[in-house]
């Protein structure tokens, strides 16, 4: 190597380098604290203490594109409230923008939006945690008790931690059994009421009408459709930051076996309903599809373009040995009021209006979590005349049947299923084979976020 730098400055450079390295290694050796990340704050903070309020101050609202027109409608009817609207992803499709930004605001000590909408039903699990949780406990004098009581049973479950309610639910995504009435009549099949009948019908379809489908196992939300309904303890909160994960439980294995047999026969697809291939080749061959209430308009009408008067919904299925039928839930948006807000009154009023008023909820795209708004919403659905039968009674029934043992967690069950189980299914493994790997993936992820798993 040639010394084009003069010797003296080379020496200087070396000295500086040694000095920097020395300083860094000294810092590295001078350990006096524990490397544990923030010790899990006692997440039941005492009574909620709002920050100093400024009456009439501007509130910042973060919402996704679908919700922004609602906020604008509120602004129109309440011209005296100063609102700054920010459109963001709304945490749809597994994004975590709200959490990312709130972490940065926590770090910086300012900047939190007064009101935030999130399409991720798990978001309250982190928003209710920490030294000063982002979400205000709305049951502590922020939103009236009578409003809170007006939500469907269990609708506020994903918002409730340690007895406090940290958000209001925008919509429910209760699962029902969707079916194509026209095709079912044509084939001469009757709609099943139990999972056993569902399996038998699936085997019959595979034989008599190969290519037709009665379900899909390749969606990220498949665990919430099938395993939640089967009451599988894939993530049951047993206490503060404690979850039970047991996929070898018979309530999980029974569903895995059922799906495995139908996947092998070909009447349950390994694809996801939103993939371009599925929409192109399989959409018109969907005979039945267990799935959330929003499938009706979003999937069958807008995406699959199934004509009017064909699709209908039936009650969630039940296992023959069980006393009653349960169902799961795929998403369902949340509204947060920031605990840092300087105008809690305006923030809570907006959130209450967005979740409960017929003016907005009755025409929303999704099933309202607030009971009175749901009635108005269902009337509106009937008027569209899209469904072959009135879906109202089934939706209302299913809204109250959500199994409470599947808890909202800081990690996404959907992300774990799609990165662990779906690739395995596509490499030819069965669900039953994969339960072990799946269990490890959930356990590892939960532990990495400070959960105790038992």
């Amino acid at each position, binding site marked *: 190597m040639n010394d084009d730098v003069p010797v003296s400055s080379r020496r200087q450079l070396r000295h500086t380098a040694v000095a920097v390295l020395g300083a860094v290694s000294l810092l590295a050796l001078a350990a006096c604290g524990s490397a544990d990340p*923030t010790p899990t704050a006692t997440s039941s903070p005492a009574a909620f203490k709002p920050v100093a309020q400024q009456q009439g101050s501007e509130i910042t609202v973060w919402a996704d594109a679908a919700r922004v027109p609602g906020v604008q409608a509120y602004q129109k009817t309440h011209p005296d409230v100063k609102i700054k609207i920010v459109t963001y992803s709304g945490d749809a499709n597994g994004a975590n923008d709200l959490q*990312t930004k709130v972490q940065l605001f926590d770090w910086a000590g300012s900047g939190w939006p007064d009101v935030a909408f999130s399409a991720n039903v798990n978001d309250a699990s982190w928003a209710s945690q920490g030294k000063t949780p982002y979400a205000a406990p709305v049951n502590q004098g922020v939103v009236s008790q009578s409003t809170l009581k007006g939500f469907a049973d269990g609708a506020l479950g994903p918002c409730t931690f340690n007895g406090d309610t940290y958000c209001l639910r925008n919509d429910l995504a209760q699962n029902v059994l969707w079916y194509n009435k026209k095709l079912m009549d044509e084939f001469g099949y009757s709609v099943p009421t139990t999972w056993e009948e569902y399996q038998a019908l699936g085997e019959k379809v595979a034989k008599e009408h190969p290519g037709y489908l009665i379900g899909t196992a390749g969606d990220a939300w498949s665990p919430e459709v099938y395993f939640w309904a089967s009451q599988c303890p894939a993530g049951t909160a047993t206490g503060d930051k404690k979850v039970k994960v047991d996929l070898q439980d018979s309530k999980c294995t029974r569903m895995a076996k059922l799906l495995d047999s139908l996947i092998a026969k070909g009447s349950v697809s390994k694809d996801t309903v939103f993939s371009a291939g599925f929409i192109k080749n399989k959409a018109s061959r969907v005979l039945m599809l267990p799935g959330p209430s929003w499938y009706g308009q979003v999937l069958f009408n807008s995406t699959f373009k199934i004509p009017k008067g064909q699709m209908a919904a039936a009650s969630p299925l039940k296992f023959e040995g069980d006393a009653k039928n349960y169902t799961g839930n795929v998403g369902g948006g949340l509204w947060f009021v920031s605990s840092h807000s300087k105008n809690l009154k305006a923030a809570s009023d907006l959130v209450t209006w967005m979740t409960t008023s017929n003016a907005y909820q009755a025409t929303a795209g999704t099933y309202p979590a607030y009971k009175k708004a749901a009635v108005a919403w269902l009337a509106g659905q009937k008027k569209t005349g899209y469904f072959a039968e009135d879906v109202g009674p089934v939706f209302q029934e299913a809204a109250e049947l959500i199994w409470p043992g599947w808890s909202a967690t800081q990690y996404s069950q959907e992300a774990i299923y*799609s990165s662990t189980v779906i690739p395995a299914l596509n490499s030819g493994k069965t669900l039953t084979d994969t339960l072990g790997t799946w269990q490890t993936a959930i356990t590892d992820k939960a532990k990495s976020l400070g959960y105790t798993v038992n």
Partner: protein
Amino acid sequence: MTTHLATERSGRRGRSARNPVGRAGYVFVSGYVLLLLAFGVLPTGYAVWLALSNSRNQLVGIGNFTRTFTDYRFGPAFLHIGLYLLVWLASLMILVVLLALMLHGRMRRASTSLRFLFYLPGALAGVASVLLWLILLDPAASPVGWLLKSFGWNTLAQVNAPGHLPVLFTVIAFWTGAGGWIVVMYGALNSIPDEILEAARIDGASTLQIALRIQIPMITKWIAYMLILAFAAGTQLFVEPQLVSLASWGMIPDSWSPNQLSYQYAFQAGDFNGAAALSVDLLILGLACAALVVFRTGLFDRDER
């Protein structure tokens, strides 16, 4: 390499040291130095500090490093990135040099338009090009769906199988990034004096011999430079796995690459110190590779060997 260039440069340097007018140079670099300090040096220093401390601002030594090292995702993430780098660096070196040589030698007439073509994808913003690939990789939507199907891949899930990922990301990265390097290598080949090539040809050297014995040895430094930058960029892989994961409804683990793992630490667990430790790991890796390449190839040597 080019004696006259080197002497000219050192001559200029000598002049500026004596001549006060040369101080204008400091003005010219000041803008860069300022930005480098604000967006390069300071954040790096802050990251080192975060990596050595905890959220209560106490020093913890290498605690954050051992803690992240024992994380169950640490090994797989670095294994993934290692495999990816292997495929990516090998294909980059071989294909870029090969294409540049071909452009320079055989296709001089078409070379301008070809160079433009190679460079074009790189001119698009990185994220936009990855988005384009999201469509190309779905057999049902892709214009080259028949090619994917001929491999036996009929769904996006089959294309995205975990074993395919290093190659898949290489294809995307090559397409978005290699064009710029082809142009750089072409420029490097142009700096080889024609007399040398002519002399070789008169001595009866074949095209292959000229390439192997003259051209490639004379552009080693450029190749080394490319290697350093590509290695650093490769270890920081983030956009490709993140976007492909989003497009496939999460079929790629959210901590596939070390940079994604660091992101998970910071923004899912709120653990900025662990995230900083991971990025310092990457910094050390990048520096070590750069040092190795610089010293082995004599990248910063100025005189003729």
